C-alpha cells in the first residue's frame, strides 16, 4: 500500500464519503443498533455522541468489519459495500485509531505500523513511510523503537501514523483524548482539521466529552439506545441541546451536567459538599504544608514513591483528605492514578513513603490492612480489582467481612443472604437473586455492589477512582449522590477522576497529578482552566 498524494480540493466540497442506511444489529434479544442512519461527508469532522451502551461502538465495529450487521446498507462514495472483514474495511479506506489494545508492545514501531497489511515486508520502505508521514503531519517518532518503550502520547502518534499510512478516506477516532493532556489534545485536533480540510478525508470522532465535540466537530450525530435521535451542524446546536438529546430528557446543570461533561460549572457545587466543607479550613496551595487543625487528616499520603520495573510511577506524592470533604484528584490518564488506586487497594507496596489513616501509618505489606484501618475503595477497574465476576452477589458483598457471615467453623449461607438482602435494599442493587453471578449484572449495579460492600464497613475514608466510567447517566447521578452523602456523613472522600467537570462539580478542593506528582492543590472556586492546565502540564503551582 502506498501513500498517494491526493489532489487538494477546496474545503466545503461536500459529497458523502460514507452513508449508513438502516443499520441494525441485535445480540440475542438486545438491539444494539436499530435502523441507524449516518452520513459522513468528505472534508468534515463528524462527532458521534452517545452514552455508554448507546450503540456507538457496535456501529463502528460494523463499519470496520469486526461484527456482521443484521440489516442495513453501507454506501461508500455512493456505492453499496458489504464490509465482511477488517481487510475489506481497510481496502475501502476505513481506518480506525484505537485507543487501547491495538499496538503490540514487544514489536517495533514500523512492525506495528505494517501489521494488518499483506504482501512482502519491506523494512526500509516501512521506516521511510513512518518518517515521511511523521514529518508531514507533525507526528515525530523513531520507527525502530519498540512500542513498549513509548509514552502514551507517542503511542497515539503511532496509531495515527499506522492509520494514515493506509491513506484512509474515513478516519475513525475512538475517545482519542482520554490519555492526552489538553495541549496534546489541541495538537491532535489541529492535525485532524488539516486532514479534512486539505486532504479530502472525513473524520468520525467518537467522544463522550461534550466540550470536545462542540469545539472540534463540524456535524454531530447523537445515538440513544441504538437509535439516531439527533443530527445537526455543530455550530447550530449547543452543549445543553446535545446533552438533552443524549439522555432523552432535560438535564440539570448540576451533577448530571458534569456527568455529561457539560463544561465547568458555577462554583456553588451540589448540596452536601458545600455544607460539609469546613469554612475556616485553610486550603493549602502546596501539598506538603501541614494542616493547622489539631485533628489529623483522615487520609494522608506522605512522600509516597512507587517504582514499577525501574520506572518511578509515583514520585514523592503528598496528599491530605480531611473528614467530611471531597478532594478531587484530577489529571490526564496515565500519570500515576492507576498505580495510586492500586496502592490504596493494597495491591502495590510503595518503595518509600507512608499512608496514614487518622494519623496512624498503615503497614501496607499486610494484606487487607487498609480495609481494617477504615479505608473503603471503589476501584477504577471494578472487573479487575472490585468484584469477582463469577461469584454471586451475596459472595461479592461478603468477601471483605467473612467473619460476619461465619459460624464457628463454616460459612453461613443464611447470614450471607441476610447481609446481602439488607445491602441490596439499601443501595438499590437490582438483581434477580442474591445468588446471581455479578457478571450478569449491569455496570451500574456492579458498581453499586462494590460501593455497598465498601460502605457497609463504615469506612472513615472512601476512595472512588473513576467511579462513573462506563455507567449510564442514571447510575452516575446515583453515584454522585452517594459520594456527597458520604462526605456529609463525615467520611473523607478522595475522588480520582480524569473528568474535569466531575471533579469541579463534586470536590471542594482539587489536587492535580502530573507524572506521579501532585503539582498543586486548589480550592475548587479558584480553579480556572488556565491554572489547572498549567498544573496538568506539570508546571508546579
Amino acid at each position: 500500500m502506498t501513500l498517494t498524494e491526493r489532489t487538494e480540493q477546496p474545503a466545503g466540497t461536500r459529497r458523502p464519503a460514507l452513508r449508513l442506511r438502516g443499520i441494525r444489529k441485535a445480540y440475542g434479544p438486545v438491539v444494539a443498533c436499530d435502523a441507524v442512519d449516518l452520513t459522513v461527508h468528505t472534508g468534515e469532522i463528524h462527532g458521534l455522541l452517545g452514552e455508554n451502551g448507546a450503540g456507538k461502538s457496535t456501529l463502528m465495529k460494523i463499519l470496520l468489519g469486526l461484527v456482521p450487521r443484521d440489516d442495513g446498507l453501507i454506501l461508500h462514495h455512493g456505492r453499496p459495500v458489504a464490509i465482511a472483514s477488517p481487510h475489506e474495511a481497510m481496502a475501502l479506506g476505513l481506518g480506525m485509531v484505537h485507543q487501547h489494545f491495538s499496538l503490540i508492545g514487544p514489536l517495533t514501531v514500523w512492525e506495528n505500523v505494517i501489521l494488518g497489511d499483506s504482501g512482502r515486508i519491506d523494512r526500509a520502505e516501512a521506516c521511510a513511510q513512518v518518517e515521511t508521514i511523521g514529518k508531514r503531519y507533525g507526528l515525530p517518532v523513531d520507527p525502530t523503537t519498540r512500542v513498549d518503550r513509548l509514552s502514551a502520547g507517542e503511542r497515539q502518534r503511532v496509531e495515527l501514523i499506522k492509520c494514515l499510512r493506509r491513506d484512509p478516506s474515513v478516519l475513525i477516532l475512538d475517545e482519542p483524548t482520554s490519555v492526552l493532556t489538553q495541549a496534546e489534545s489541541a495538537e491532535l485536533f489541529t492535525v485532524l482539521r488539516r486532514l479534512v480540510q486539505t486532504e479530502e478525508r472525513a473524520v468520525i470522532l467518537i467522544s463522550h466529552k461534550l466540550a470536545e465535540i462542540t469545539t472540534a466537530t463540524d456535524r454531530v450525530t447523537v445515538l440513544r439506545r441504538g437509535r439516531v435521535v439527533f443530527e445537526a451542524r455543530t455550530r447550530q446546536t449547543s452543549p445543553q441541546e446535545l446533552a438533552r438529546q443524549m439522555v432523552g430528557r432535560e438535564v440539570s446543570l448540576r451533577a448530571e451536567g458534569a456527568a455529561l461533561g457539560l463544561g465547568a460549572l458555577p462554583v456553588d457545587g451540589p448540596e452536601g459538599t458545600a455544607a460539609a466543607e469546613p469554612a475556616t479550613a485553610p486550603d493549602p496551595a502546596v501539598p506538603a504544608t501541614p494542616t493547622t487543625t489539631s485533628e489529623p487528616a483522615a487520609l494522608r499520603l506522605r512522600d509516597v514513591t512507587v517504582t514499577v520495573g525501574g520506572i518511578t510511577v509515583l514520585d514523592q506524592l503528598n496528599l491530605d483528605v480531611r473528614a467530611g470533604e471531597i478532594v478531587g484528584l484530577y489529571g490526564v490518564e496515565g500519570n500515576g492514578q492507576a498505580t495510586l488506586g492500586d496502592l490504596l487497594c493494597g495491591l502495590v507496596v510503595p518503595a518509600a513513603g507512608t499512608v496514614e489513616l487518622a494519623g496512624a501509618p498503615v503497614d501496607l505489606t499486610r494484606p487487607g490492612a487498609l480495609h481494617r484501618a477504615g479505608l473503603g475503595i471503589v476501584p477504577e477497574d471494578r472487573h479487575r480489582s472490585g468484584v469477582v465476576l463469577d461469584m454471586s452477589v451475596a459472595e461479592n458483598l461478603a468477601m471483605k467481612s467473612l467473619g460476619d457471615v461465619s459460624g464457628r467453623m463454616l460459612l453461613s449461607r443464611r447470614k450471607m443472604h441476610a447481609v446481602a438482602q439488607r445491602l441490596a435494599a439499601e443501595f438499590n442493587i437490582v438483581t434477580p437473586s442474591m445468588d446471581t453471578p455479578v457478571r450478569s449484572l449491569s455496570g451500574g449495579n456492579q458498581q453499586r455492589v462494590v460501593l455497598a460492600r465498601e460502605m457497609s464497613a463504615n469506612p472513615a475514608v472512601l476512595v472512588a477512582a473513576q467511579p462513573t466510567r462506563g455507567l449510564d447517566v442514571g447510575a452516575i447521578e446515583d453515584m454522585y449522590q452517594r459520594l456527597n452523602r458520604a462526605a456529609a456523613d463525615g467520611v473523607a472522600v478522595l475522588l480520582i477522576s480524569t473528568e474535569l467537570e466531575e471533579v469541579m462539580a463534586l470536590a471542594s478542593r482539587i489536587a492535580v497529578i502530573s507524572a506521579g506528582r501532585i503539582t498543586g492543590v486548589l480550592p475548587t472556586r479558584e480553579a480556572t482552566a488556565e491554572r489547572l492546565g498549567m498544573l496538568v502540564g506539570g508546571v508546579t503551582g
Partner: protein
Amino acid sequence: MSMSDNISTILASGIRLSLPLAFAACGEYLAERAGTLNISIEGMMLGAAFASIATASMTGSASVGLLAGAVVGLLIGVVHGNLSHRIEINTFVVGLVINALVLGLTSYLITISEFDTHQVAQVGIPVLRDIPIVGEALFVGRWPAFLILAIVPLTWWLVERSRWGLELRAVGENAQAADVTGIKVNKRRRQALMWCGVLAGLGGAYLAVGEVGSFNQNMTAGRGYLVIAAVIFGAWRLKRTLVGCALFGLADAMRLALPALGVTLNSQLLIVAPYLLALLTMLLFAAQHREPRSLGQPFERGTA
C-alpha cells in the same frame, strides 16, 4: 580406541540423537511464538514415528515412511488446532488427551502388528567426511538429517522476516491487539500448530526410519517434553533452542557411551540434565521476560 575416536563417536551419536529434537524444536519454537505451549508435540513425534515405520513397511520405502510421518504430525496439529483454537478447549487438556490417545493407540497397534525394519539411506559428503574428529559426525548421516540445514533457516526466516511470522509474533505477544488489527488470531495459531506438526512429525519419523529402523512401544519416551525444555532453555530464541537440542543430544550420547568407555557417571543425572537446565534457565533468566506474553492463553474476542 584412541581419545579422538571416542570423542568422534560421542559427537556423532550426540548429533544423531539431537536431530529428532532439533526438527521438532523448530516446530515447537514456532508454535510457542504464536502463543501455543504445545505439549501434544510428544504425541506428534510418537504418532509420526509409528506411521513412518508402518508406511515404510507397507510401501517398502523408508522415504515414503518419512513423508507419512510428517503427514501424521500435520494431522495431529490440525486436530489440536481445531480443538483448542476453534472449539476452544484448553490447550493443555487437549495436549494431555492427544498424548494419552497416541500413546495408547500406537502401543495397541504395535502389539498386534508386525513391521519390517526400514531405514533411509546413509550419505556422506566426500572429502569433508574425512576431517578428523568432526568429519564423521557432521558430514555423514541418513539423508533426511541434511534437511535440518534447510529447515532451520526457513523457520528463522518465516518467524523473523515473513509477514506471516510477524503476524504470528503479534498473536503470541498480544492476541487482543492483533485481533483489532485484523489478524485472525486463532487461524494463525492453528497454522502454527500445523507447521509444528509437520516438523515434529519429521523429527519423530527421523527417529524411527532414520536412526532406529523400527518402532517400539512409547518409542519417543518423553522426547517431546525434552523439546519443550529446549525451547524454554533457548528463551524463545531459535539459535539458543538449537544449542539446547545439541546439548541434550550430547548428554544422551554420553549416557550411552560412557559405560563402554569405563567412565562411571551417574546415568540418572545425565537423563535429568536437560530438565534441570531448562528449570535453571527459567530461574536465572526469568527477569528477562523473553516469554511470549500470550503464551498458553486462549483467545476469545472481547475478553480484554
